[in-house]
């Protein structure tokens, strides 16, 4: 018996050769991902998050392609996956996209690290962007960092109150006001909720309210509205200069807000301790909640049963919106957040990127997104003033006056300061709040403990003492910048 490779029959040779060819070609396909046209100058790659605005924006993209001749490659990711992908791409200095969705929290670090570019030059040269139409509070909170406009808002969120008209009517409770007023306080809010305690409606037991208890982000997002209303500050001096990030959680406003939040939890379904963002909205849409406050996208999201289904919820015609309560004797601060679009510095098609951002944040596109009927009208997160006056849009989203009123009182830089390393302190705060809701610990003790954890984390991140340059970040400064850049 001899085995010699030379004796291989011709058939076998052919077979091996074709296998080898197949392997080689498939290996080629493996290295080059399917990126048809990605190298094309007439393309723009957009990396978005899957928030409500995404769906209507996606539906409008054929119009952008027709107008500009630029082909859009749109990709959406969940929040966690997006941040992971972006930071990895930045570190590796790759050009993964020409437009990226930037959370308000990420703006400062992205710009300071040189990962996204300032749009100041583009905007200054642009004659028809109508910068003055943007709500200054929104631009200030979400888009400006150190005097640069680095992103433009595609979906701006404030917080507001949603309540059940039918329930309030049947128990003879006065409807909360649609305009902010000195009488509409958090104390009043809790009193109103208490009058719903232990009640049933339509044969079902009723919960006065619902909160988010899940750590770290959801509970922080909801709680910080309460604490900002009470004048609580995270840091000794920020956003005003000189920046000093010594934590201030031991102040009385924090403890008071925790007490209040605890009360709100007692008036909520117990499982709310594990509720993330959408759980609170979904619960309200199910029909056994009297009143709650949350991000303004829920003004329209609670109309729907299911997120991407477009099916109407039970409360579709039974709820109304109201102004956010304020604290006695403290000027109101509303939490602002939302999504903006920016251009990565690694992109080699930055012009296309800006063209897309300009289009997506324009009045015309935002209006069309709002009028897109699929998913039962799922977009009213305007950052542009004129849309709040637009009769067509107001006919679809009757609550726009309330929302605009909240926006104008907004300051996202105080409620959740977008400082580098924010998530690390947020996870500690979220954990403490979550523990305080179910536990019996004294808020003061817990906050003192958290304060010292904040301090050690911030010191570990070289934020205390702050060594870089400060920037006096004020709303007036923002307005001045809008004035200068918008003069084109």
């Amino acid at each position: 018996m001899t085995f010699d490779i030379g004796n291989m029959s011709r058939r076998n040779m052919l077979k091996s050769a074709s296998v080898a060819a197949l392997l080689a070609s498939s290996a080629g396909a493996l290295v080059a991902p399917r990126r048809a046209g990605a190298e094309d100058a007439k393309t723009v790659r957009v990396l978005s998050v899957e928030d409500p605005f995404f769906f209507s924006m996606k539906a409008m993209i054929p119009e952008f392609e027709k107008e500009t001749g630029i082909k859009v490659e749109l990709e959406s990711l969940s929040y966690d996956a997006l941040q992971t992908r972006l930071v990895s791409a930045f570190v590796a200095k790759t050009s993964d996209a020409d437009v990226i969705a930037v959370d308000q929290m990420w703006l400062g670090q992205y710009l300071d690290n040189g990962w996204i570019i300032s749009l100041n030059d583009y905007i200054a040269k642009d004659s028809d962007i109508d910068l003055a139409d943007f709500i200054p509070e929104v631009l200030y909170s979400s888009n400006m960092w150190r005097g640069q406009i680095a992103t433009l808002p595609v979906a701006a969120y404030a917080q507001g109150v949603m309540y059940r008209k039918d329930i309030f009517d049947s128990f003879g409770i006065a409807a909360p006001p649609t305009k902010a007023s000195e009488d509409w306080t958090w104390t009043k809010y809790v009193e109103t909720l208490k009058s719903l305690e232990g009640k049933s409606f339509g044969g079902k037991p009723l919960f006065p309210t619902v909160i988010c208890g899940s750590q770290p982000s959801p509970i922080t997002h909801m709680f910080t509205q309460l604490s900002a209303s009470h004048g609580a500050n995270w840091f000794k001096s920020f956003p005003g200069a000189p920046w000093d990030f010594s934590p201030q959680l031991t102040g009385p406003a924090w403890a008071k807000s925790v007490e209040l939040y605890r009360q709100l939890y007692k008036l909520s379904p117990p499982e709310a301790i594990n509720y993330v963002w959408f759980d609170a909205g979904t619960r309200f849409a199910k029909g056994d909640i009297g009143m709650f406050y949350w991000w303004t996208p829920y003004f329209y999201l609670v109309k729907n049963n299911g997120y991407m289904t477009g099916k109407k919820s039970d409360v579709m015609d039974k709820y109304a919106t109201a102004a956010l309560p304020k604290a006695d004797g403290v000027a109101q601060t509303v939490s602002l957040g939302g999504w903006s679009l920016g251009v990565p510095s690694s992109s080699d098609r930055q012009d296309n990127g800006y063209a897309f951002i300009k289009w997506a944040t324009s009045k015309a596109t935002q209006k069309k997104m709002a009028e897109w009927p699929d998913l039962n009208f799922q977009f009213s997160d305007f950052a542009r003033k004129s849309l709040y006056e637009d009769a067509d849009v107001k006919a679809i989203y009757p609550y726009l006056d309330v929302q605009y009123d909240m926006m104008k009182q907004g300051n996202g830089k105080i409620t959740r300061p977008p400082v580098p390393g924010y998530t690390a302190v947020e996870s500690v705060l979220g954990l403490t709040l979550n523990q305080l809701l179910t536990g019996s610990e004294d808020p003061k003790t817990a906050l003192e403990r958290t304060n010292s954890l904040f301090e050690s984390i911030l010191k570990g991140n070289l934020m205390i003492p702050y060594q870089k340059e400060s920037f006096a970040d004020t709303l007036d400064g923002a307005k001045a910048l809008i004035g200068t850049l918008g003069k084109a």
Partner: protein
Amino acid sequence: MARAKTFYTALTYAAGLLFLAIFIGPILWFLALAIRPAETAFAMPPQLTFEPTFDAFRHILVDPGTNAPQLVNSLIVAIGAVLLNLPFSVPAAYALSRFKMRGKKNIMLWYLGLLMAPPIAFLIPYFVLITRVGLQGSYLSMVLVLQTLTIPFSVWLMKSFIDEVPAELEEAARVDGARWYTIMWRITLPIVRPGIIVTSMFAFVFAWNNAAFPLVLSSRSTATLPIGTLGYFATSGVTWNYIAAAAVLAMIPPMIIFLVFDRYVVRGLTFGSVKG
């Protein structure tokens, strides 16, 4: 005596049914979620009967069909991982099975020990590594990194199959003057072909089920199915029917492989250390 036996038989069957209820019931319930009307998903008490609808599958596969390309990507990545792993693991398995080596036990354990590394902590370094070699977002990046799972697994499993080939066959060829590579290529490997297929199928499942690596290594055009399921769990809402439909899609190939290769399951799962 006979009565006692009947009793035990009945008891055994009852236990069997209980096992099925506990371990298979939840899977069927998830399958039901994918085809039930959305509004019955959280009905209390649970609704067993409903009008089945394939809307969710239509949504994920056809219109807009976000997950259809991801299904293809998952296939490409998993098959690629298996194909790349063979030229590395088969020779190693052959050597570990056939030759006398110093420290063989330690080498074998070393392969297993690699599985101790926490994959989640390696995502950032892997991303940096993959980018340095210019492969970011490509299928090959995932295929490469998946080798940390597939090679150790395949070496162990393949070794167990090669161990079973009688040495006499090779001995005869050796006496006839055949070289070791001829022997390996023309005698041993054809005999263990079923073993290679089984190894490949299970390696496929490991690669298919991996969600951590694609999280940072994939791009829009190369994202795999587990990433797709995550997409329906957004901050503003969750669409359970779509999650379930995408999840069912992701479950099917591994399940088919395990059912078809039933007699090799034990061997596959124990890295070949139990013959089954």
